[in-house]
Structures are given as structure tokens and as C-alpha cells.
């Protein structure tokens, strides 16, 4: 591989596209045939075209900083991550299984709590959960589904095993980048789409629409669907707008909606008030309804919970769904799958240590230099400790935090997560990545074809979050039979 950078010589992680001898894996063969057919400098030219395209398409995300909000262009690497269809179908089945069980779990927690009564989940976990909403107790949403849209983070270890790292059940974002990345690739590398059978990803908006439409309380009528955004300064505003546009839904802010004295949600239209049937909310629970949650919220809609409780509006994801999006609850997911579905989990969890248990906590404290420690309820890569890379002081600080609030922390071995070749100075250098597929559930189940591949653009870095300097790649699920 002439294109491979010197960094590959000392490489230990599993590489998605190259085997140990730096030969392209079968699924990636046509891609490398194509890359090798390009003249010197051609790749750099294409990279420039990518940058110009992204700028023109205005694909941005917002970063909060002291000097105000900055609209950043999402870093995009033009070398796709490739996976064979057969492997993907196995993962897809695992994702659907997982979300099905998680929804049964959430519905159980807000109703009978049978899983606690049966001693599978310790009661103290629920008691100390910050994402459990007592206001939702006794509510039975349609189909018993609470998390209609889930973003599951997957990583691959050095032995090739795919693990679930997190289930994002609150307001997961990133799917618009998955869709836009494919658009960019089609604009920049149209030739390669002729020679490789790459499965399309663009049915997501239609699937999302159907998932949401099934929640409408007015059966038989064309539902009015609204995407509720915190507004233009939210980091994912681009996505909110994109999805609304793709679905033909209304993109609304809290102030565009109103719950009248009849407990029905209306939007303020040019001809007066119009009923809304389904809200795809991209606002956290705490800000959703100042009557019930944070009273200071100006992002939400007063009375929304009233309307939802009465069944006058569908809300996705349902308020309170985040109770299963907790890194401590995460460690119980294999048991949750067995308990509700009576099946073995298809996808593996990363082995985890719970600091709430004395013996496991002692192990974590004694091995902080080898472990990754995560707080239970943070997202976006904030507030975690990567033991092997932390200083002594940072580890001491975390040890104190853990002793202070053991329920809030869990730890996992530091995975040597997989890499894929990424364009750096005209060469392909290994960069660590993960994969976030999106799974939908209401009356039916659906999982995306592939997902959003996030890549840590800095050498050696394991942090792929966009808020922490990560970028993304197109993800190709390819038909291996064609090759």
C-alpha cells in the first residue's frame, strides 16, 4: 500500500479497511482499486472539492465558547469506512433486539416495575437515577414505546469484536450528517458509485416520518408533525432543520406552539391556530414544559405534558425515556434483554465495573491508570477520565469524585478501538473511529444502513465527539458478492 502512511508500521489497533499486512480487506478492495487509479495529487484536489462543497452546502454545527457561538464546518474525511453487508445485517438485528428490550424496560419502570420486583434490577439504581421522571409514572404511550429514536454507539476492539458503547435515548443527533456525507461523496467521487454496490442510506427521513406518523392521536387523518428545536443557536440546529425539511414537517420553536385550555397543542399559523398531532422534540426533558419541569424554561411549551398525558399529542422521544440512557443502567442491558425477550443478546456490552458495588469500586480505584471512568448521565464525551492518558492529579481527583458519589460512576477497560485510513497530508493514516447507527421504533422497527462514522482526527486520539474535535466519514455497507 503506497498510500499508507508510516504510522501504520507501528499500528496495533484493528483497522477497518486494511489487514495486518496492510492489504485491503475484501469489502474494501474496489475502493482501493479506485484510490490507486487516481493520479498523484488527485486525492488532494478531491479533498479541496470536499471542503468547498461542505462550505457551500453550509453543513455546520455550533460550538459554545466564551467568545460566543461559532458555526464550525463539520470536518469530513473523504475516505469512507466500508463494511460488508453480511456483518452489518448481524449488527442490525442486534440493534433492533436491544431497542425492543429497552423500550419494554422503560415502559415497565413507569408502570408495574416488575423487573425490580423480580430482583433483576436493584431498586437503588432507579431511586438514584437523575433521568427518571416521576411525572411520567402511569403513562402508557402508544405501542408501549418510549424511545422512538435511538442512536447506538458501536466500537470495535483490537480482536475485531463489535461492542455497544452507549445507547443514546434522549435526543440523539448526527443522522443528518450521515445523510449529507453520502451526498458529498456522490458529488465528489461519482465514479466509485458505478463500480461498487453501495447500499443507499437515504430512506431514513421516510422511515422517521412513518415512525412519527404512527404516534398521531387522530387516526385516518394526515398528521401534522412538528420538529421542536431549541433554536438556531443549538449545536444540532442544522439537523433539526434538515430533518423537518426532508419529512415535510414543521420546524417549530417553543414559542410557535401553544397548549390551549382544551389541552390540545396548536401551532401559530398565518391563518390562526392549527392542531399539532406529533412532536419530534429535540429539547431535553428538563426544558420541555415549564409547568411540570424547569419552570424557567423558555424553550418549551407550557402545558405540553398535560396534552401528552391526555393522549392529545404524540411526543418522540417520550419524556422520561432517558432513564435507560444512563451508563449504570447500560451495564444491565444484557440482563434486560434476557429478562424481557428471553433471548441472548446479539451485540456485546463492553465489560463494565459499577462503582456502587464495593468490590467493583475497589477494583476501579486500584486500576484507575488502566480504565476509562464515565459519569452516569453525561453525554458528548464530557466529564470522563481516560486513565492511561490522565495525569496523577487527574486520577486523584476522580478517585475522590467516585468515593463521594459511587452511583454516578462506572468504569470500563480502555479499548484499543479500531481505526480506518484517513487522509492526512496526502497519505492514509490510521485514525480511531466509532459508529452511530440510528434505530427507530413505533409500530415497526427500523435500523439505518450503516450509520454515522465519527473519527478522531488527531493522531492517537480516542475522542470522536464533534464537540471535542472529531470529524466524520461516509459509511458504506457493500454487497460483497459483487466484488
Amino acid at each position, binding site marked *: 500500500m503506497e498510500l499508507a502512511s508510516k504510522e501504520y508500521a507501528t499500528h496495533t489497533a484493528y483497522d477497518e479497511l486494511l489487514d495486518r499486512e496492510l492489504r485491503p480487506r475484501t469489502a474494501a478492495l474496489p475502493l482501493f482499486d479506485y484510490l490507486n487509479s487516481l493520479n498523484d495529487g488527485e486525492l488532494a484536489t478531491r479533498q479541496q472539492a470536499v471542503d468547498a462543497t461542505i*462550505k*457551500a*452546502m*453550509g453543513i455546520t454545527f455550533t460550538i459554545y465558547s466564551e467568545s460566543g457561538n461559532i458555526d464550525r464546518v463539520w470536518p469530513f474525511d473523504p475516505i469512507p469506512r466500508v463494511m460488508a453487508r453480511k456483518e452489518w445485517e448481524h449488527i442490525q438485528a442486534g440493534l433492533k433486539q436491544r431497542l425492543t428490550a429497552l423500550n419494554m424496560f422503560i415502559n415497565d419502570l413507569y408502570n408495574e416495575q416488575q423487573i425490580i420486583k423480580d430482583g433483576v434490577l436493584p431498586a437503588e439504581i432507579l431511586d438514584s437515577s437523575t433521568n427518571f421522571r416521576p411525572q411520567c409514572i402511569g403513562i402508557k404511550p402508544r405501542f408501549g414505546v418510549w424511545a422512538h429514536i435511538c442512536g447506538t454507539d458501536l466500537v470495535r476492539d483490537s480482536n475485531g469484536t463489535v461492542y455497544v458503547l452507549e445507547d443514546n435515548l434522549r435526543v440523539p443527533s448526527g443522522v443528518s450528517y450521515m445523510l449529507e456525507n453520502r451526498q458529498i461523496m456522490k458529488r465528489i467521487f461519482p465514479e466509485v458509485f458505478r463500480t461498487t454496490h453501495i447500499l443507499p442510506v437515504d430512506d431514513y427521513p421516510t422511515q422517521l416520518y412513518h415512525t412519527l406518523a404512527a404516534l398521531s392521536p387522530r387516526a385516518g387523518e394526515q398528521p*401534522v408533525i412538528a420538529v421542536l428545536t431549541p433554536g*438556531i443557536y443549538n449545536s444540532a*440546529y442544522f439537523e433539526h*432543520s*434538515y430533518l*423537518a*425539511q426532508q419529512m415535510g*414537517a*414543521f*420546524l*417549530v*420553536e417553543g*414559542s*410557535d406552539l*401553544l397548549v*390551549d*385550555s*382544551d389541552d390540545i397543542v*396548536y*401551532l*401559530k*399559523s*398565518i*391563518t*390562526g*391556530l*392549527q392542531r399539532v398531532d406529533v412532536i419530534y422534540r429535540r429539547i431535553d426533558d428538563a426544558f420541555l414544559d415549564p409547568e411540570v419541569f424547569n419552570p424557567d424554561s423558555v424553550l418549551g411549551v407550557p402545558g405540553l405534558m398535560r396534552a401528552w398525558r391526555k393522549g392529545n399529542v404524540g411526543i418522540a422521544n417520550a419524556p422520561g425515556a432517558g432513564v435507560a440512557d444512563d451508563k449504570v443502567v447500560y451495564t444491565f442491558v444484557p440482563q434486560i434483554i434476557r429478562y424481557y425477550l428471553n433471548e441472548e443478546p446479539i451485540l456485546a456490552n463492553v465489560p463494565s465495573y459499577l462503582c456502587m458495588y464495593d468490590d467493583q469500586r475497589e477494583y476501579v480505584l486500584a486500576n484507575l491508570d488502566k480504565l476509562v471512568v464515565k459519569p452516569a448521565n453525561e453525554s458528548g464525551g464530557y466529564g470522563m477520565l481516560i486513565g492511561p492518558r490522565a495525569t496523577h492529579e487527574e486520577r486523584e481527583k476522580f478517585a475522590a469524585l467516585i468515593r463521594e458519589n459511587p452511583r454516578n460512576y462506572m468504569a470500563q477497560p480502555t479499548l484499543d478501538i479500531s481505526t480506518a485510513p484517513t487522509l492526512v497530508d496526502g497519505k492514509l493514516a490510521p485514525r480511531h473511529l466509532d459508529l452511530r447507527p440510528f434505530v427507530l421504533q413505533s409500530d415497526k422497527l427500523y435500523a439505518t444502513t450503516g450509520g454515522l462514522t465519527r473519527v478522531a482526527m488527531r493522531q492517537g486520539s480516542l475522542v470522536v465527539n464533534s464537540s471535542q474535535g472529531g470529524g466524520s466519514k461516509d459509511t458504506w455497507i457493500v454487497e460483497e458478492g459483487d466484488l
Partner: protein
Amino acid sequence: MMLARVAENLYWMARFLERAENTARLINSTTHVLLDLPEGATFGWVNLTEIAGMDDLFTQNYPKANEESIMRFLIEDASNPGSIFSCIQYARENTRTLREVLPAEMWERVNSLYLYVRDNAHIACSSRRERYMVLNEIIQQRHAIVGLFAGAMAHDVAYQLIKLGRNIERADMTTRILDLHSAIIFPDESVIQEALMERIWMSTLDSLSSYQSYRRLISMHVRSDAAISFLLQDMRFPRSVAFCLSEIESCFKQMPKSQQLQQLTTQLRHKIAQYVTDKLDAIALHEHLDLLQIELGEIHESLLQNYFHAWQADIQPVLQPSNEFAQQ
């Protein structure tokens, strides 16, 4: 069905884009006419700042009124809400909130226009030659945007709102430009040579892209009364006030609950048709234009009430718990 907030943003987006283009045209044609002015003749650049009623803001922020400071103020000054840069920036911010109702390419177009203005506005302020090129590019990019509206967008309510914003802004701008140029010319009519007057009227027509049409449709000679009539009353020219009003009327016909707005617009158009322009002196013209601006403002206000605030009338009165109080 459309959100009131979205409707309002569409309307303003169109107004800002139109305003930016009009300002660019005005600067270009003024620069042109300057080159032709005879030795010794002076032109008050500062008059340009009066067009959008921005003269106070200008004098507050700029110690000296010369070509360069006025160009900065009109083209790149972010603290002037009427500068080309500000208008494009507002239009872009509005477009950003409107992506789900506009054709997908619209954001790309408006965004690249914004990037162009951001990166080139300072060049346009420095030299006349570059100014012409940059402003022309802005005008052309804006034309591409209008083309996209016309050719790639469903002619639905969103489209009508854009067209309304464009035509209300355009009609307003035509009255302002007329007002400005008339103010320069009439007070000293006896002193100013006829040729110079004609030049300035040509510039007025040119700033509204109407010089060519005027010559073809009216006359080779530019006379003030004929030019005024052309810009106010001619139903063939798309920047005349009467033409804009008829566009506005046709938009309202496509909009829900618009009876009263249609009437208001038709009345104003009929009133303009009855002006006798060859008997207008400077003061009478100024009064006409003033009234015209007020009446355009009324159409704007009624539109706001009728569409952007319509929902307020639908809220159900909350039943007061008066019984409980009575019992206590």
C-alpha cells in the same frame, strides 16, 4: 398551512435581499453619473444615506462625509442595519431558519452570497473600478436567487410572501430614490443646466434598471415629468410603483383571508393612476411621495396583523374560577 414566524421570516428575507440589491444598484449608477459630471459640479454623496433614512446614524458614526466613508457605511458597515452587508447577513440568518420551506439550493445560494459579501465588501469600498465589479457580482448572485425562487419553488403561500416582501420593498425604494433625486434637482432648477439635470434623471432611471426601457417605451429624451410618470405609473415596467402594487394585489389574491388587503392595495394603485405628473412641482411631488410611503407602510402593517399575528384571535378565553371565589 404555515407558521406565523416562518411567514414573517420569509417576508423579511425577501425584503432584505431586495434592499441589498437596490442599494448596490443605487451606488453603481451614482458612481457612473459622477464620471460624467462637468467640472465644478458637486454631488452630495451624503444624499445617499438619506434614502433609507440613515443620515442620522451616519453622522453619528462618521466624522467626515466623503465618498470613502459613505461607501463604508452603505456597503460594509455591520452597525448600519441598511448596509449591503447587514441586509445580506439578516437575509442569511432568516434563510437559515427557513430551510425546510425553501428549495434545498436556496440556502447554498444565500450562504455563498453572504460569504462573497463578507470577503469582498472591503474591496468594494476602496476603489471605484473594483466597486463596480463587486456590486455587480452581488446583483448577479441575487438574480440567480430570484431565478431559483421563480423556477424551483412551488408557487405556494411561501412564494407569495417572498414576492410580497420583494415588491413592497421595491415600491418603497422607488419612491425613496425618486424623492432623493427630486430633492437635489428642483430647488435650483433655474441654475442647473438642462443637460446636467437630464444626466441625473438618467442616473435615477439607471439605478432602477429602467433607463433602457424608458428610452424604448417613452422617449430618447429624459424629462423629469415623463420619468416621474414612468416610475410611478407605468404598468409595463417592473420597478414602477403601480407595477409593484399590481404584483402585490396578485399575491394577495393567492393568499387566504386577504379581502381587505386586496382592497387597500387596489385603492392605492388607482390613486397613483390619477396623479397628473406634468403639473407637479418639487413640493407637491415630495408630498405625494411622502403619502405614498405612508400608505405602503399601511399595507405592510395590515399584512403583519393579518398573517403574523392572526393566531392571537383564536385563543380560547380561559374560564375564570369565579365560583370558587364566590364560595369563599
